[in-house]
């Protein structure tokens, strides 16, 4: 982290960048938040540790409008989102100075707590410089040690890889964290009967409080005006609880980002209700891969997106019924 701060100070000092986009400590130790830093003094608050899961690429949309370059820290997975936004002309590459930061897997406080820990007051071992395989969790009931991997975000266990799709320089080492199969859970749901699937999703979606955290954090959900806030679609019906928006929000959101979602997993990370929202996005990605060929949004800026291209031989929609179990 110190190397990163030193480099940021240098770049600020020599005028290469006008500001730094990184993370600073949040109200809770395990909750750092995205922040802009414009001078050396502010940079003292800069943090980069295992809890810096937040994908900063979306902030570059606003930063692109500012005078001068912005130093942006991107983890390998964030770089996909950055490139996807470049592809959609939402951010200006020329306005960014990208430092690709190393990643050894990002932590999730809920996952840590799920190890049977109560009254968590702090976590050590989350620093990137710590080459430890263990986290030390201080709780009201004493200190507990758990393997690092047991505290990781789900998305890190199915990591797309530790290679930056785009960056100007790299700081920090990465460590492979992939232990699982990315589509295993989607496949498991697909195996369920129709009634089981419905019960599963009804349970999950009923938790939704429509706080819009998923929408706000999503780099693909970056419309100037969301269709659900628009009068042009007759879809915003805030007064009515039992409305179109309430029921269909997540399906439509997933459809709107289909072919553009890089599977950064931020939606699930920020959901206060713990809804596994990535299961929607990943379903579309899985279908796209299976039906139209492997496609990773944000990996190749020139690649044709699956929903804005076609081939004559594409499968018919009836394939859905044919391959469905129920």
């Amino acid at each position, binding site marked *: 982290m110190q190397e990163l701060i030193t480099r940021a100070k240098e770049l600020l000092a020599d005028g290469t960048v006008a500001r730094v986009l990184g993370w600073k400590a949040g109200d809770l130790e395990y909750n750092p938040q995205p922040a802009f830093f414009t001078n050396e003094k502010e940079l003292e608050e800069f943090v980069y540790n295992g809890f810096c899961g937040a994908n900063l690429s979306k902030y570059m949309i606003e930063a692109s409008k500012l005078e001068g370059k912005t130093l942006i820290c991107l983890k390998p997975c964030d770089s996909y989102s950055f490139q996807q936004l470049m592809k959609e002309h939402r951010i200006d590459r020329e306005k960014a100075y990208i430092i690709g930061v190393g990643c050894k897997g990002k932590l999730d406080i809920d996952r840590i707590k799920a190890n049977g820990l109560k009254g968590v007051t702090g976590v050590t071992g989350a620093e990137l410089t710590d080459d430890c395989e263990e986290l030390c969790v201080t709780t009201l009931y004493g200190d507990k040690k758990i393997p690092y991997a047991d505290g990781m975000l789900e998305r890190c266990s199915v990591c797309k890889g530790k290679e930056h799709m785009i960056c100007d320089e790299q700081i920090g080492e990465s460590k492979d964290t992939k232990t699982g199969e990315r589509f295993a859970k989607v496949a498991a749901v697909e195996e369920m009967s129709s009634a089981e699937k419905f019960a599963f*999703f*009804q349970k999950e979606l009923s938790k939704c409080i429509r706080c819009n955290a998923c929408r706000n954090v999503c780099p693909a959900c970056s419309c100037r005006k969301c269709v659900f806030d628009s009068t042009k679609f007759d879809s915003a019906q805030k007064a009515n609880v039992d409305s179109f928006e309430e029921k269909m929000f997540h399906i439509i959101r997933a459809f709107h980002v289909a072919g553009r979602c890089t599977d950064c997993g931020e939606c699930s990370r920020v959901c206060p209700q713990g809804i596994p929202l990535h299961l929607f996005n990943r379903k579309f990605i899985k279908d796209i891969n299976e039906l139209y060929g492997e496609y990773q949004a944000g990996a190749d800026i020139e690649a044709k997106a699956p929903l804005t291209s076609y081939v004559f031989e594409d499968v018919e929609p009836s394939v859905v019924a044919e391959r469905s179990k*129920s």
Partner: protein
Amino acid sequence: MSINNNSEFKPKIVAFCCNWCSYAGADLAGSSRLTYPADVKIIRVPCSCRVNPMFILRAFEKGADGVILCGCHPGDCHYTSGNFYARRRMTLLFSMLDYIGVENGRTRVEWVSAAEGVKFSATMNSFVEKIYSLGKNVRLEDLRCKN
């Protein structure tokens, strides 16, 4: 046709038809007096690619029991490529609906040309029959538990 397992159930079925092929196919079915159940209501769209998944979800939310999209045969699109985009969009949407547990017989895509009045009528008959067999759509209406 003989569909009446449940005399109470009157399904609501929305058919989106492209102006150039399927809507004309429906007209031909009409002028040829090829019947299909009155449960089907047609909405004219310029092309199958005009159909936004939101229209389909909205129909279900408002109480539709089945939604069918008809367009020109692949390769015959009046706008060259519209139905190809529609095909991908609908495939993914239908797959998602299947994934969340909505019975996949409630949605269908069928390519019907302007000359295929017989196919239009047959398609609607078979679709309505399927919807009768599935009964009322409750899942999409009740995607979120009301309590």
